[in-house]
């Protein structure tokens, strides 16, 4: 099936997740071969996802872990063992 750009945009997210049917995937790839607009949309979306998963983009506040384990330590002193309910 020949896909137009609008159809391809609808599939870009699933395409990145590799969750489109093989036949549709082929159609998308055929479209991407000659469509610079859709290729650019796909690349830019992918780049955003790479950056999102990079741990430096969304960081845990400095000292979070230390504070957490101190708090846990206090909790452990108060309670003998976690409850079994």
């Amino acid at each position, binding site marked *: 099936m020949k896909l137009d750009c609008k159809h391809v945009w609808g599939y870009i997210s699933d395409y990145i997740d590799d969750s489109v049917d093989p036949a549709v995937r082929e159609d998308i790839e055929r479209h991407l071969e000659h469509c610079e607009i859709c290729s650019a949309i796909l690349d830019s979306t992918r780049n955003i996802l790479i*950056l999102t998963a990079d741990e430096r*983009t969304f960081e845990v506040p400095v000292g979070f872990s230390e504070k957490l384990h101190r708090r846990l330590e206090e909790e452990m002193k108060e309670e003998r063992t976690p409850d079994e309910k």
Partner: protein
Amino acid sequence: MRALTAPICAMTKAKPNEAETIARILAGEKELFHDLIRPYERMVYLTVFSLLKNETEAEDAAQIAIINAYRHLGSFRLDAKFSTWLVTIAMNEARQKLRRDKRAALESIEETVEEGTGDYTPAFLTDWREIPLEALERKELREALQKAVTELPDLYRQVFSLRDLQEFSIQETAEALNMKPGLVKVRLRRARIMLQRKLVPFLQKTPPAHRGWFGGAR
């Protein structure tokens, strides 16, 4: 700060020794909880942050959630995934906080409006070239992305945060949010397009220093 290499395996299948560690904690070796929780700290923090959108509040809520997980470890079923169980506790804690602060009602109005009216057409890029990885390192781009994610409507941000930030699978995201995988996909599609639209201007601003590497004019 952790380096960019292996992302945290938030959803690694129940590790064989994890069940054993949990059993030992419940039997009295409570100190082992420190080691059990370490790989999941970031996941819990990001989960509550995706709902609270405030660093200080998220830090506190994440700590409370983890302490709750410790207190109720006995109710964890060993056939479940520890990560999914933890995420559920983290979400409950964040939602309770929103309710306590009476912010929940406001959020749901925002969501109803956004569900049907968003613009889901991606932004076009003119003169697009594969951007060098170095360009992705720019602080300005990271900050724009942080802001754009925080500004996503709640419905989309929750799905996006689990799937793309914490790298859960579609199925795992659906389980954690108690929704069908189909709905996860729909919301993810919209969230990604919204972000693409917002970030394209930053992605296209490749600094001139990065051009002409391959023999082109300087």
